[in-house]
């Protein structure tokens, strides 16, 4: 990387922020755990032993066992897969929808912009969590009995292969892009009037070229920051949906579901609750650190 490039300077500022580096380290470790789960986890996540129901931490089961005698440590490791998948797939979905919507709206301006932004204003009033709950019930019961081979059958197969995560990601992605769209549109409006865009247009550049070469590079940074700052919310949605039983399908281990199971048994067996609660909090903390770090690195004015 050349020393005077924006990327290099951003990385310099980011890496000077110790909290952000710590967050990045945690996320990288979580990603390694998620990918290597079958080799790292001592047991399979669905494998229970009735003799160990609610067993306290011991040498065989480092964090004890849950109500079905399943190893909590192994389930936590497999659970990183759910949280990280939700985080990244929802982030990418909402990022792609939001940024294309925002750029189109801002670039064309006028009536198009007006109509598109009124739609965003209207969708803004929607209580997100309620919409996601409705969508989840819709997906879960519509795709319960579909014929394989059709489009619906394929979607259902993907969802089953992912342990019920696919539809959660769609639900979150479809509701979370509004903020990105507003940001992308606002920045497009600002960049569109700059001289270099004018110059490019004077040279006969097409709309696609201007969007790709001039608009995108200038607005992508803040949009990435915005979506990173939203990721904790996505993880929370999944955890809450699994908490009330609308999330992933058992026995897929989701931290939200594990928190619910632990919460029910909390009076006598607090360890069943504490382990996934701590894992969830640390992951969200890491995403917050990285998001704040990115924001400060890209926009020095915001520095603390």
């Amino acid at each position: 990387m050349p020393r005077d490039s924006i990327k290099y300077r951003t990385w310099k500022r980011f890496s000077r922020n110790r909290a952000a580096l710590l967050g990045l380290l945690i996320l990288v470790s979580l990603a390694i755990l998620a990918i290597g789960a079958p080799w790292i986890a001592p047991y399979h996540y669905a494998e229970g032993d009735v003799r160990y129901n609610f067993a306290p931490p011991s040498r065989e089961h480092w964090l004890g066992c849950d109500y079905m005698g399943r190893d909590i440590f192994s389930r936590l490791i497999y659970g990183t897969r759910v949280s990280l998948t939700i985080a990244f797939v929802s982030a990418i979905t909402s990022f792609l929808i939001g940024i294309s919507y925002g750029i189109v709206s801002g670039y064309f301006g006028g009536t198009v912009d007006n109509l598109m932004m009124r739609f965003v204003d209207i969708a803004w009033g929607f209580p997100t969590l309620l919409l996601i709950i409705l969508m989840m019930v819709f997906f879960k019961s519509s795709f319960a009995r579909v014929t394989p081979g059709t489009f619906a059958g394929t979607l259902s197969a993907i969802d089953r292969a992912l342990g019920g995560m696919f539809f959660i990601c769609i639900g979150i992605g479809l509701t979370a892009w509004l903020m990105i769209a507003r940001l992308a549109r606002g920045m497009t409006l600002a960049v569109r009037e700059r001289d270099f865009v004018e110059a490019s247009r004077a040279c006969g550049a097409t709309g696609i070229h201007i969007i790709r070469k001039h608009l995108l590079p200038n607005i992508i940074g803040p949009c990435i920051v915005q979506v990173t700052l939203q990721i904790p919310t996505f993880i929370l949605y999944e955890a809450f949906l699994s908490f009330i039983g609308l999330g992933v399908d058992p026995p897929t281990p989701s931290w939200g579901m594990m928190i619910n199971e632990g919460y029910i048994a909390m009076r006598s067996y607090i360890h069943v609750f504490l382990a996934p609660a701590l894992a969830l909090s640390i992951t969200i903390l890491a995403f917050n650190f990285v998001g704040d770090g990115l924001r400060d690195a890209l926009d020095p004015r915001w520095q603390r």
Partner: protein
Amino acid sequence: MWSYIIRRFLLTIPVIFVVSSVTFLLMHAIPGGPFSEEKALPPEIIKNLEKKYHLDDPLWKQYIDYMWGFMRFDFGPSITYKTRTVNDILAQQWPPTAILGSISFFFAILVGVVLGVISAVHANTLIDYGCMTVAVIGVSMPNIVIGPLLIWIFALNLKWLPVARWGTPAHVVLPALTLSAPYIARFARFTRAAILEVLNEEYVRTARAKGLSERLTIIRHVLRNALIPVITVAGPAFAGIITGSMVVEQIFAIPGIGKYYVTSVNNRDYPVIMTFTLIFAFCIIMMNLLVDILYAIIDPRIRYT
């Protein structure tokens, strides 16, 4: 100003229209109806039941009938609970949600702003680092973690407060804390940043130069200007708290509309789903409107035409 308020008010009509039609379509698109769960009902009886609740009408007519009722505050019958109307259910379930939500909202603003001011005044000292560490942890601990943790500490072990349910003021404490904790943290961080920005302004230096005490400078000059950006966070925070109350009501078994909502979706109790969604949406819209108006009142530089 007035024309702005009226225009914003009129804008809520299309919002309510879109929210209601999306909810209506989505909920009717869910397979199964309110009667599909019950066993061994002869088809004629199901037909009669559907006739009674007008579920055999075309969808657009059902929608118009519902919205017509909604405008007159007649939310229709509950299909699951044959003897109760949605108005009855609302009268019973709304107060806990409203009380919990408003207490948490004002508590979050109050404590958050105070913490933010303390942090900013003592910027880069141990007090500041302490407050901000707590705030970062608060932002990162979700409701489903804080709630059970508070129950475990204060209800199960110390036995100071009731574990769950609703009724006495003591029942409000833990759920309100759970609900407001992340927003206390958010307000604290935002207030601190806003104040630090304002502290560098010329008029603060002037205030100090003319010999105003530090306390008066902060209260009269800094806080007033720093609160403007803080108000913008209040709208999203309110929306977050009111939908977050669904989570907290589940954890603490509070008989509010959040807890009831999931049940009614599972039962396909159409009038209840519609009414609750619209009421949530209405609260959020009104709060955003209020925030925008407050914004204009506090900051004389902003003029809406």
